[in-house]
């Protein structure tokens, strides 16, 4: 659970507020999606949960992150590192950067297995290790795993690298898995395979997952609940069906409207007006108001807190208050 997390980042232009009062509750076994454009703060949120924010330049000002009863922000680095791996795992966005370029795949996978071994005090022989590696690569539908194991990261395609990153995280059987844009830049076919595999994993092992993406379609495919983020704040949260079928927040509505519905005779897609805000110079009041078709005077001055509608939906918008 993330509560009221507020975090700044030091840039050349001074302090920039990257996250503000972000709260999330996540049930065990859920797949939660965090959706937003670049700059919405979603990656930073992910890094914060696993405790991998580099402390200069990032600075967490207030809030807490509680995992399995522990306030992560209060732990010292050594204790924190014990949670990583078998506790919380993370897969990063740029797969080429995420893998160490000088080690072969098999070496890097073996590292993960070693962590598992130490954590659970298992005894795994070399042969067993190799089998584990091949098994997991097969699960991820990689052809010729034996060949892949011997290759270096730069010799593999993006899709394969991404799956290897996922493999490294999964092998350690994490209780919480954070996936940051793992489908971006991949062709749809591979995307699909990865998402399907993730859902299977979730159903099989009840691994809790946080899926961070900018693509609503991806999120809607496997997530149980969604959090929509904009300019470092949560704009809307709720069950996926609810949000997709009846988005309440104007921003969510725009995101939904921009999704192509297929080759039907439809009018041209409404492109959202304006651009994602520059975090260094945010507008006053509700951060979305310059682009909002329903903007009211109140929106320009006061930022709406998370309000609950009569049917239990939670949105950060003044429109909801009226209902």
């Amino acid at each position, binding site marked *: 659970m993330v509560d009221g997390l507020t975090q700044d980042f030091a840039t050349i232009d001074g302090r920039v507020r990257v996250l503000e009062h972000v709260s999330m509750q996540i049930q065990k076994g859920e797949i939660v999606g965090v959706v937003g454009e670049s700059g919405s703060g979603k990656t930073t949120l992910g890094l914060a949960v696993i405790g991998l924010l580099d402390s200069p*330049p990032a600075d967490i000002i207030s809030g807490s992150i509680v995992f399995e009863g522990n306030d992560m922000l209060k732990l010292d680095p050594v204790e924190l590192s014990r949670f990583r791996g078998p506790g919380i795992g993370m897969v990063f966005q740029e797969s080429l950067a995420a893998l160490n370029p000088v080690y072969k795949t098999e070496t890097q996978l073996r590292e993960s297995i070693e962590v598992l071994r130490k954590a659970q005090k298992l005894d795994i022989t070399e042969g067993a290790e190799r089998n584990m590696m091949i098994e997991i690569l097969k699960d991820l539908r990689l052809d010729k795993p034996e060949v892949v194991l011997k290759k270096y990261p730069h010799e593999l395609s993006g899709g394969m690298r991404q799956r290897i990153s996922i493999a490294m995280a999964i092998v350690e059987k994490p*209780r*919480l898995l954070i996936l940051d844009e793992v489908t971006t830049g991949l062709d749809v076919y591979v995307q699909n395979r990865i998402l399907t595999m993730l859902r299977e994993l979730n159903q099989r092992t009840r691994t809790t997952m946080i899926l961070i993406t900018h693509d609503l379609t991806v999120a809607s495919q496997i997530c149980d609940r969604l959090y929509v983020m904009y300019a470092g704040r949560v704009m809307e949260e709720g069950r996926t069906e609810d949000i997709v079928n009846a988005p309440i927040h104007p921003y969510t509505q725009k995101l939904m409207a921009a999704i192509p519905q297929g080759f039907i005779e439809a009018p041209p897609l409404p492109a959202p007006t304006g651009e994602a805000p520059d975090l260094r110079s945010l507008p006053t009041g509700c951060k979305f108001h310059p682009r909002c078709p329903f903007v009211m005077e109140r929106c320009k001055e006061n930022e709406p807190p998370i309000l609950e509608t009569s049917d239990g939906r939670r949105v950060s918008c003044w429109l909801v208050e009226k209902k």
Partner: protein
Amino acid sequence: MLKVAQSLKFRQLILSNALSTLGLVIVIISVALSVLFALFGRGITPYDPYALNLQQSNLPPSISHFFGTDFQGRDIFSRVIAALPIDLGLPIAIVLLSSLLGIFLGMAAGYLGGAVDEVVMRVTDLFLAFPTIIMVLAVAATLGSGLANATLSFVFVWWPPYVRLVRGGVLEVAAEDFIAISKALNSSFYHIIVKGILPNIIPSVLTYATLDVGTALLEVSILGFLGVGIPPGTPELGVMVGSISYNLYNYPWQALFPAFITMILVVGFSFLGEGTREASDVKVRPYILFKGKAFKDKAKVPQKERLPVTPQGVI
């Protein structure tokens, strides 16, 4: 895109580091002194750096002779000041010429590519194999001694690193989108190169060149020390050390002062160069700024009314 807007912050960044400010100061002072000397000569030194005064030779440092006198009675302090234009001028000339040559060749190789690239790089690799010693011989044997000749023989071996640097930079920049856009818009050749590519490689060349002046200075002084290329009587920091190297134990100051000044000069350029390098490195910048006081003041969290949310099944 073009990093012109960064130049203001650039200066701020360089000065934020105490060491590089020191470097800047050293460089400015020494350049100023050498310019003054070049203009006014004896006017600014306590004694004539060239006048022989055998009765006053080998005096230890004193109030009247800050650094003492050398074996021919010349005041060392004055000679050090006299040496500045040479010990700064030569390296700066070397670096200037080498960098210009390097920029020209590097841009040709990087931008034009193909056969030009191959040829330029092979020649560059060839010249990279020359150790300084070769150049030493080149000076002595071919051209005879003299400062201009010395400069030329340095440049002969000095230019290859610039070609590599520039070529690498050009390759990086040329791959960027804004170049493709310019080409699509049919901008002139000149326009692309001068306005597009050049400003983006200048920072890295500048950094390297600053540090390189220091290195060149060292090499020049070593040549002077060995007595090669630079005529023996010249006031040059290396020569001054070399001329006393056999009688060190009796008159150590005659060597120590010039040598230390050399070191200080190189240190000055090095600090400045390091500061420039850090300021240009985008990744490192936030860390430099993070230390500033302005940063700490604004860490306030705005009050916000929140609906109490009951935590449900927590992980």
